[in-house]
């Protein structure tokens, strides 16, 4: 099995080996072994649920650092709309752009503008793609990976659209290259990410043959430096700025609000809620729904695991930022977006690579072995207590049984099985101890 890159990493010295993370993982990718959490790379979708769950902060998002800007002559920051939800009301978007320039960027291009472009392209895509239904937004990379790992039958339902981040990167690059005459490979483009999944998507892209983004910085990593440069009165404009609707993508239901009322759509946020909706879609229900907006984080990207602010506070702030960008700016942003689509061609903003199922849930490589193991697994499950206590290091009794049949755990890792076996041994010992020897006189027990 190929090993995939993941931005979510375990900090071993901080991990206490508790079982909180294994319980919340949506793909059952974590086990506790020898007192430390171990993440199964084949199953991990970088949703960051474990980052959020771990009270010891033993799960970290490994992203690029500002040091990496030194590799390029000219650096462009692509702030996710959610970044603006992390800053208090005292500083407006232009001050945040100023602060980004203070920490080392030469220019800023708002991803919210990419969202305006993708909104328009998605609207057309839904119209010209009558089947299958429902289509599923591919804006959240954790959801795309979830589909690849757990719902491969839904892969044909994923909307074949580029993410707003890539759209913004492509145009910012082209604009800077043309206007300043800088060679493309000397331009560094860095996404300011609210989550782990998008960091992973930058470093190992989902479906575009060439990555227009050179790296990703986590909001939490640069937050302190940004704050230090806010409130000093400086302000600057980005190369492109999106409309309020574009900024709204960072909040649950935001993509749908941008798409408008003509689409029969459903919005779901929070990875476990997303699983519930995908189960429905995978059973052939929801065929009357045209489009599903699915975001791994509760409240949307403003609730991303690389953010610092409370998700619900951030959501209100995001809505305020959206509202603050007036309706005139909306018309402007939309007409600029339409011009850009015309200039680059609509196809440029589609997804170009095929999304493939990802292996990771199979019990064995060949069907015959998998069938044999499944039979064995069922027998083991029937004997387990079904308490899903997690003491064995697997999230549920069933996953423990899977680990046993795959040779990664032993039945007595279950404390209840161990206790049963000790009881049997103790009974055997007692029986042996009471056995009469031929040379001894018969003992009268009664």
């Amino acid at each position: 099995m190929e090993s995939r890159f993941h931005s979510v990493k375990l900090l071993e010295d901080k991990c206490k080996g508790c079982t909180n993370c294994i319980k919340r993982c949506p793909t059952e990718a974590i086990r506790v072994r020898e007192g430390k959490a171990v993440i199964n790379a084949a199953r991990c979708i970088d949703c960051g649920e474990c980052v959020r769950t771990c009270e010891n902060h033993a799960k970290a998002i490994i992203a690029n650092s500002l040091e990496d800007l030194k590799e390029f002559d000219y650096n462009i920051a692509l702030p996710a709309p959610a970044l603006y939800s992390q800053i208090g009301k005292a500083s407006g978007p232009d001050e945040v752009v100023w602060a980004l320039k203070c920490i080392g960027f030469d220019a800023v291009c708002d991803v919210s503008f990419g969202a305006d472009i993708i909104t328009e392209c998605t609207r057309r895509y839904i119209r010209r793609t009558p089947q299958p239904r429902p289509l599923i937004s591919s804006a959240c990379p954790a959801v795309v990976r979830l589909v690849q790992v757990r719902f491969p039958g839904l892969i044909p339902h994923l909307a074949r659209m580029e993410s707003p981040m890539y759209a913004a990167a492509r145009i910012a690059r082209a604009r800077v290259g043309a206007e300043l005459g800088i060679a493309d490979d000397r331009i560094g483009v860095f996404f300011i990410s609210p989550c782990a999944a998008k960091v992973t998507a930058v470093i190992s892209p989902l479906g575009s043959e060439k990555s227009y983004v050179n790296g990703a910085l986590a909001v939490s990593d640069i937050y302190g430096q940004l704050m230090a440069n806010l409130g000093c009165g400086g302000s600057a404009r980005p190369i492109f700025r999106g409309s309020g609707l574009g900024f709204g993508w960072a909040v649950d239901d935001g993509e749908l609000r941008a798409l408008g009322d003509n689409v029969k759509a459903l919005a779901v946020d929070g990875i476990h809620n997303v699983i519930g909706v995908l189960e429905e879609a995978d059973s052939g229900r929801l065929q009357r729904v045209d489009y599903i907006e699915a975001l791994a984080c509760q409240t949307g990207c403003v609730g991303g695991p690389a953010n610092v602010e409370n998700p619900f506070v951030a959501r209100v702030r995001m809505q305020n930022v959206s509202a603050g960008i007036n309706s005139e700016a909306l018309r402007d942003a939309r007409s600029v977006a339409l011009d850009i689509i015309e200039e680059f061609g609509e196809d440029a903003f589609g997804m170009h690579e095929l999304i493939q199922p990802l292996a990771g849930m199979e019990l064995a490589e060949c069907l015959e072995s998998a069938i044999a193991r499944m039979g064995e697994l069922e027998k083991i499950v029937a004997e387990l207590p079904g308490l899903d206590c997690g003491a064995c290091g697997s999230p549920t009794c069933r996953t423990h049984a899977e680990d046993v049949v795959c040779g990664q755990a032993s039945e007595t890792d279950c404390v209840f099985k161990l206790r049963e076996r000790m009881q049997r041994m103790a009974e055997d010992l007692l029986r042996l101890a009471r056995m009469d020897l031929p040379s001894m006189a018969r003992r009268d027990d009664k």
Partner: protein
Amino acid sequence: MTCTDEPVLEMEFAVARHDFAAAGEAASRVKQVLRQLGIASHLARRAAVAAYEAEMNLVIHSHGGKIVLRVDSERITLAARDSGPGIPDTELAMREGYSTASDEVREMGFGAGMGLPNIRRCSDCFEIDSTVGRGTTVTAVVNIARPGS
């Protein structure tokens, strides 16, 4: 790892009459099992949709029953067995849009008369056998295309 001869998996999932809270769980388990067996996603999808429709039929129309999943190296077989009431006219029941579901059930979004036709559409081989007063068995088979054959 070497493959053993012709292993067969058989699993049963009980489905209770009118238990709408648990409806869909059997189909969901079927899907999980097929995924763990490494069945190609387009085949697993068809089997899962058939299982879901069959499960909903048991919940809505039957006195209760079970879904039996059988997998060998060549095919996935789903059998939905119930203990009544039985279908008086199976040909009519197979007609798209025909349903005997109550208004109550229709309000929940079911009873469009597409259940059995959907199961047939998803399967390579389909059988329905029903006796009024005894029960119904719906069998759906999805063939597993072997690589290189």
